[in-house]
């Protein structure tokens, strides 16, 4: 079980209001990702749920019980920190066993659960090492192991992969996804990595300055961003946002078109422009095109597209992929 409900949750640090007022429902077994710019309150929200910070106002319910006043240990949640927060003086085994020891569990039961977790996470050979003797990915797994053994109602992850290098990140991403599939426990995951958010989430919560901008599945956010903020935030490279007459043509204050939804041609098209920087990745080419009366547009084409700085190109947005936003920034 792991249904978490936030009702009118507020958080102030002294004068500073970090979370003005927030409602959120997280269903049992869901994989929820919090994204948002740095400082928007993702970590704070996670820590409120964990009980590491007091809410200034509002209510947090876990599985229907009011958990607002409960100390962290009582909430039945497990947390994996960005820095892993392993206990450096304990072996892997002791690290994983620590929450069970604190719960005064029987030694045999502890032994059993630890070796079980170690099997799941491929840590069996490292049980007697100290965290200092492990690689980044292994440490990450130990941190997860420490969370698993408690069989918590939900897992909380705060940017767990941000300290890993690119290759390892891909691996660990897959591992966490698989873990979610096999455990079917609620997971709340904070990240600022687009790819992680898109690939892992059942539901993404986009935060901005402590407010929820949109909640929905990754593809919903990709296809139907509720407002300019979400439109600009989700997707990489960023959606091109165009104001002025071109937008007016579509009856909107701002229109948005993703780089992958612009067709490129050397002969003809809707807009004519001049290539600025072109980035050739082999598999893709990103062109930064200057079009009169518009901001620099980013265009993505598959494979190699042989243009260079200063070349002239024509761009055509795919009509059904144009997003329209009103004066208040909301999608029309």
């Amino acid at each position, binding site marked *: 079980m792991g249904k978490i409900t936030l009702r009118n949750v507020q958080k102030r*640090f002294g004068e500073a209001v970090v979370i003005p007022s927030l409602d959120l429902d997280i269903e049992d077994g869901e994989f929820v990702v919090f994204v948002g710019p740095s400082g928007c309150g993702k970590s704070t929200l996670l820590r409120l749920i964990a*009980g*590491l*910070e*007091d809410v200034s106002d509002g209510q947090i319910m876990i599985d229907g019980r009011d958990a607002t006043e409960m*100390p962290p240990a009582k909430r039945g949640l497990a947390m994996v920190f960005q820095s892993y927060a392993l206990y450096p003086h304990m072996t892997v085994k002791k690290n994983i066993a620590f929450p069970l020891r604190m719960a005064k569990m029987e030694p045999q039961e502890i032994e059993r659960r630890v070796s079980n977790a170690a099997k799941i996470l491929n840590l069996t050979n490292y049980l007697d090492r100290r965290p200092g003797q492990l690689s980044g990915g292994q440490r990450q797994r130990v941190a997860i192991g420490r969370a698993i053994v408690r069989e918590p109602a939900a897992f909380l992850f705060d940017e767990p992969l941000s300290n890993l290098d690119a290759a390892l990140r891909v691996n660990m991403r897959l591992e966490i996804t698989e873990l979610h599939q096999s455990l079917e426990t609620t997971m709340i995951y904070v990240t600022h990595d687009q790819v992680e958010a898109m690939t892992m989430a059942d539901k993404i919560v986009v935060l901005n300055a402590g407010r929820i901008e949109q909640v929905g599945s990754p593809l919903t956010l990709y296809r139907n961003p509720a407002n300019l903020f979400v439109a600009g935030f989700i997707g990489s490279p960023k959606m091109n946002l165009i104001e002025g007459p071109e937008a007016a043509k579509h009856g909107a204050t701002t229109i948005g078109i993703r780089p992958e939804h612009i067709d490129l041609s050397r002969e003809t098209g809707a807009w004519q422009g001049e290539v600025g920087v072109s980035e050739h990745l082999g598999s893709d080419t990103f062109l930064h095109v200057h079009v009169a009366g518009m901001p620099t547009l980013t265009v993505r084409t598959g494979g190699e597209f042989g243009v260079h700085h200063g070349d002239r190109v024509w761009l055509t947005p795919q009509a059904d992929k144009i997003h329209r936003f009103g004066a208040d920034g909301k999608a029309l």
Partner: protein
Amino acid sequence: MATQHSKTAARLMISPAVILLFLWMIVPLSMTLYFSFLRYNLLMPGMESFTGWDNYYYFLTDPAFSAALTNTILLVVGVLVITVVGGVLLALLLDQPFWGQGIVRVLVIAPFFVMPTVSALVWKNMFMNPVNGMFAHIARGLGLQPFDFLSQAPLASIIGIVAWQWLPFATLILLTALQSLDREQMEAAEMDGASALDRFLHITVPHLTRAITVVVLIQTIFLLGVFAEILVTTNGGPGTASTNITYLVYAQSLLNYDVGGGSAGGIVAVVLANIVAIFLMRMIGKNLDA
């Protein structure tokens, strides 16, 4: 970290230390304050009487007081200058690669472990004694007249002894700080065309300020209370040439048994120490936060 629960816990956890130190400060201090207004000579019990500010008047107008104040400042500043400058130079030297680093460090650190009394005795008798001391032997070996350190330059000699004891401490802290200097920063400066001296002045010294501040703070705390070294070597003399405030208060209350006067002196010393403390804390506070 900021739940109500943890804040309450924190207050609870810190209170034993705070309460104990507060008692330690306030109880004797208020007794001292009380005594300082009494005419109270240990040798004449039962004759205590209230004298108002007399004790303060006599303590502050005692010519020894101004001498002691000067000496205290000279002693503290002198030792600080020697240990900081010497410590920086020594740390720079020991930071180089050389053969036998471990042993050298062991040798250099040794004076810090020596009891002040012992080091004063050793220096006074075995080294500075104008007849049998090592320096006298050396001077005579060179055909020179032995120098009588403790009567001709008593304060300087004491500064020397105390500096010898504290040099290792300064050196070690500065060495640790030096070793924490980011190597890339040095290399960046090198790429930027800074000479070795430039690098020392513009990179190393600023990097060390924090460590130097700490050395100054800790040493000042201990140097204000230098006592055993003076008692053993010169008894504050000749005249008052090496009397510091601490020694003066000692002389007043324990050589003259004038508890009233000594207490007044103690209160004066506390006030002075607090002035120094406030001054230091300001400086430290700034440097440590940055």
